């Protein structure tokens, strides 16, 4: 093959036909949704390893390591206890305000961290995305897996606090695992949406913390929405009681605290939010699959 060619060395035949004849596949094209999800499932061990590795890597960074994953929300809990509970008097909203705050804060931490870290999961792993081929959806999912591992380490703290603050061992504890699972699915969907949006408009990454903070204040981490919004307009009540953050927090609190009731409507929305966000998140993220290389 010593012929020199300038410009197109024309293949003559239709390249697509030639490719088909020799069993070559188009490269860099997005697979159909079903095949994509299947491929991602096939790479699930990569997602879990990525999550485990980043937990271990964070222990190496500073002396207390992963403990900060737990200390952070607990220290915030103390701040909120003093600032809102005592200073502004929201402790009256709940019979066991400390338990109410700890369960709410640790659950919110999971949600908040999943979405914020999920948002940066594609842009932060730019080098990885640009050098290896794998379904990119693994990145936001592994962030949520990582936060799930962290949440498990906070479960003993929740149990100790609720027992010390006068709650008993309740059969309702069984609500916690399925609620965590639904919250994880919701967070995966939200993390996919956030990652997609951030890779498209970087400003989203700067905006997101404020949106999440607004959401947190509205949802009642340190006050009981059912008390505070008792006389609010109906649409405010609906938003405050049934937004995704509120329903998962409500179930978690119901699982651990005797004074928190639950309604079928809350359970209904917990399932609906998880399904809707996961479905929309997957489709939206998948549709931009081949573009994450630019990010």
């Amino acid at each position: 093959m010593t012929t020199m060619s300038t410009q197109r060395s024309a293949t003559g035949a239709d390249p697509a036909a030639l490719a088909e004849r020799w069993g070559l596949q188009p490269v860099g094209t997005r697979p159909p949704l079903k095949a994509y999800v299947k491929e991602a499932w096939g790479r699930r061990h990569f997602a879990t390893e990525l999550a485990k590795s980043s937990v271990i890597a964070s222990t190496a960074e500073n002396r207390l390591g992963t403990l900060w994953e737990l200390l952070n929300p607990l220290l915030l809990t103390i701040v909120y206890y003093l600032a809102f509970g005592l200073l502004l008097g929201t402790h009256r909203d709940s019979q066991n305000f400390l338990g109410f705050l700890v369960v709410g804060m640790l659950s919110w931490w999971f949600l908040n961290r999943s979405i914020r870290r999920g948002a940066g999961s594609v842009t932060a792993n730019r080098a990885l995305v640009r050098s290896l081929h794998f379904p990119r959806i693994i990145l936001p999912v592994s962030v949520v897996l990582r936060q799930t591992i962290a949440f498990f380490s906070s479960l003993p703290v929740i149990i100790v606090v609720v027992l010390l603050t006068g709650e008993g061992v309740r059969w309702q504890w069984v609500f916690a695992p399925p609620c965590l699972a639904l919250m994880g699915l919701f967070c995966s969907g939200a993390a996919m949406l956030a990652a997609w949006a951030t890779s498209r408009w970087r400003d989203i990454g700067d905006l997101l913390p404020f949106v999440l903070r607004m959401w947190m204040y509205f949802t009642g981490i340190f006050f009981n929405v059912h008390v505070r919004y008792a006389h609010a307009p109906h649409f405010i009540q609906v938003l405050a009681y049934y937004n995704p953050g509120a329903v998962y927090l409500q179930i978690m609190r119901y699982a651990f605290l005797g004074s928190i009731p639950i309604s079928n409507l809350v359970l209904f929305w917990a399932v609906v939010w998880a399904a809707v966000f996961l479905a929309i998140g997957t489709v939206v993220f998948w549709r931009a699959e081949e573009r994450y290389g630019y990010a």
Partner: protein
Amino acid sequence: MATREAATTLAAAPRPGERRPTVIVDDVHVVYKVKTERSRAATRGSRLIASGPGRMKEVHAVRGVTFTAYQGESIGLMGRNGSGKSTLLRVVAGLHPPTQGRVYALGQPTLLGVGAALMPELSGARNIRLGGLAMGLSNKEIDDLYDEIVEFSGLGEFIDNPLSTYSSGMGARLRFAIATSRTPPVLLVDEALATGDAAFRRKSEGRIKRLREEAGTIFVVSHSLPSILESCTRGIWMDQGKILADGDVHEVAELYTKSAEKQTT
């Protein structure tokens, strides 16, 4: 049917026997948009920040590249910085979608390199697992390859220490050992193949030779002409996103060298 197709396809480039194409690059263009585009978020913000109209800058990195690579070929891509050869490599790897045109390939072409997947805080052993999974190996395959990877990297007991404590040579050896632990049908190599000290370089050259024999087709992008001449059978010279010459590696290299000399004088 097959003979008619063969007649038309083989007419363009006559060759002895029938060779199996592994990569078909069909009129590929890549246009980067380096832009401060007025997206919806930006327009909303611009009322506050009073940013000017979005500027758009287009970089036409690859301009209509067409070629077919065959089983058993190792192809060296030559060209100056910014000639589009690395971009082309990433398009073939499916990591960057072409703006226009198509690429067909046998299996999933794989860029040799795993460095981006590794975490410096983790031990070499953990990184073998993480890197292997990132490359698409199964846990079982990693278990089977593990000893060989450690052996080849020559890290010995250091394998349980964090990557961040390794010397740059040790890190390079581990990355190379992981990246080359498996042979894909189409392998893409961007720069710096053999790293480390002389002994390791000799060892890794041996492995690259083996990869070349096992892989269907290898693409190499390198600034080092000697390494291309040594390891490639076919050369493609790119300039400003276009193929200037495509053929026997020695002839293409000669053309490329002559042109480079002309530019410096």
